[in-house]
């Protein structure tokens, strides 16, 4: 007899908006891996502990080519049909994944980010702080900083005109919102595909040399081409949405978190050199990729005592794993002095976030400068009234009204 499956927890306690769904605690304490029904009705395995989650991400018997599990009820697809655009190396395994990822890695090393991007980030953050100082005392931090800065940075990196930001941001939000219908989400995806297609045509026409998109065009055209046209467009779409929406969500949520943790904020203001560990702790504590990441078994295998069958979907709930008391002491406490080797906020394994050093640079610049410039910054509404994005693939705040 098989036990009735539990549902993957996706609903947060509205009184604890910074914590993952409480149900995860029980699942994680019961067993490391459990059979579940995912939000879209498909079934598979859910891993809630840190060590076992790490194993999943680093096991070559589990493939990154996976169907979506986090779409609304009834929307179950094969991996191939999961996105209207080519998901590129996100869904590839080694050695193919490495070949494609390495077309981009040079731009994303700590050194490259420090030398080529950091001066730009410093400048735009200062400009946005100036604009805040010149504007009304109470303002929406999302519109004033958390959204424009990541948009500007991805535009600079890719070679995308910043005046198009409203279009690509709206399309991204539509595409990533699991509270929206498939039609609406696909509309967002197609907007991005058409946008990148037109931009690539424009760059070809003008022989542009600015940014990653122009570089990738060079790897699509000509004798020794390594990318197909469809892959080129897919990569452009991927970088544009993955590069800005994640970081924007993280910046807004991090600010809300520090505004509600007074001791920790004071500690950071007195010791700005702690910004490195602060950002890592926020990435762990908040784990904005809120529905987890899937992998598919390429063969029968055993994992933490569970018998996984070839073709089974295994999802790692990173938000649960990052609160695993086996891996972190007092996991539900935000501690900017926490000593930890690593966390799973950027995933883990060969697919670990390509843009992580860019995201870190933005967060490490904005947070200390913000509280230095506006030491009295405070929430303009009670925490309970901050509109949270419960349905977005990336958890965040929709709006964050603050007073300087």
């Amino acid at each position, binding site marked *: 007899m098989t036990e009735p499956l539990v549902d993957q927890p996706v609903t947060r306690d509205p009184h604890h908006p910074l914590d993952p769904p409480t149900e995860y605690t029980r699942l994680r304490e019961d067993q490391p891996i459990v059979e579940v029904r995912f939000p879209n009705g498909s079934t598979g395995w859910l891993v809630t502990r840190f060590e076992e989650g790490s194993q999943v991400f680093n096991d070559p018997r589990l493939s990154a080519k996976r169907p979506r599990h986090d779409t609304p009820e009834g929307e179950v697809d094969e991996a191939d049909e999961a996105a209207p655009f080519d998901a590129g190396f996100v869904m590839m395994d080694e050695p193919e994944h490495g070949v494609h*990822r*390495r077309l981009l890695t*040079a731009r994303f090393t700590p*050194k490259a980010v420090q030398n080529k991007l950091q001066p730009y980030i410093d400048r735009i953050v200062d400009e946005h702080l100036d604009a805040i100082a010149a504007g009304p005392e109470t303002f929406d931090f999302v519109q004033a900083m958390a959204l424009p800065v990541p948009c500007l940075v991805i535009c600079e990196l890719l070679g995308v005109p910043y005046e198009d930001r409203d279009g690509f941001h709206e399309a991204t939000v539509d595409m990533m919102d699991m509270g929206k219908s498939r039609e609406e989400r696909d509309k967002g995806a197609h907007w991005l595909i058409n946008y990148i297609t037109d931009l690539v045509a424009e760059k070809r026409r003008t022989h542009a040399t600015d940014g990653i998109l122009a570089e990738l065009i060079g790897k699509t055209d000509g004798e020794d081409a390594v990318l197909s046209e469809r892959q080129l467009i897919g990569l452009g779409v991927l970088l544009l949405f993955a590069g800005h929406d994640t970081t924007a969500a993280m910046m807004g949520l991090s600010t809300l978190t520090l505004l509600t943790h007074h001791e920790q904020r004071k500690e950071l203001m007195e010791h700005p050199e702690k910004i490195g560990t602060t950002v890592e702790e926020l990435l762990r504590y908040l784990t904005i990729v809120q529905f987890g990441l899937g992998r598919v078994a390429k063969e029968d295998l055993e994992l933490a005592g569970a018998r996984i069958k070839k073709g089974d979907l295994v999802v790692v709930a990173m938000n649960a794993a990052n609160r695993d008391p086996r891996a972190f002491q007092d996991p539900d406490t935000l501690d900017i002095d926490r000593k930890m080797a690593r966390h799973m906020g950027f995933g883990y394994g*060969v697919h670990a976030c390509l843009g992580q050093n860019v995201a870190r640079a933005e967060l490490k610049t904005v947070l200390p400068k913000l509280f230095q410039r506006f030491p009295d910054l405070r929430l303009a509404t009670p925490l309970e009234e901050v509109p949270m994005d419960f349905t977005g693939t990336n958890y965040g705040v929709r709006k964050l009204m603050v007073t300087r």
Partner: protein
Amino acid sequence: MQISIDFDKCCGAGQCVLAAPDVFDQRDEDGIVVLLDDNPPADQAENVAQAAAVCPAAVIQVKQ
């Protein structure tokens, strides 16, 4: 201490360089890890252990 690396699996995240800059670097052209010293002095042990632990692809092996 003896360090070995599975270069094929390195995903170029550069976390090793931040943890132990005297021991690891990355190639400019594709971000793949470069081992500056495969037998670093004992005072690097802590940094190297940190690099091995933080590496998302788990490709750094350390033998004492």
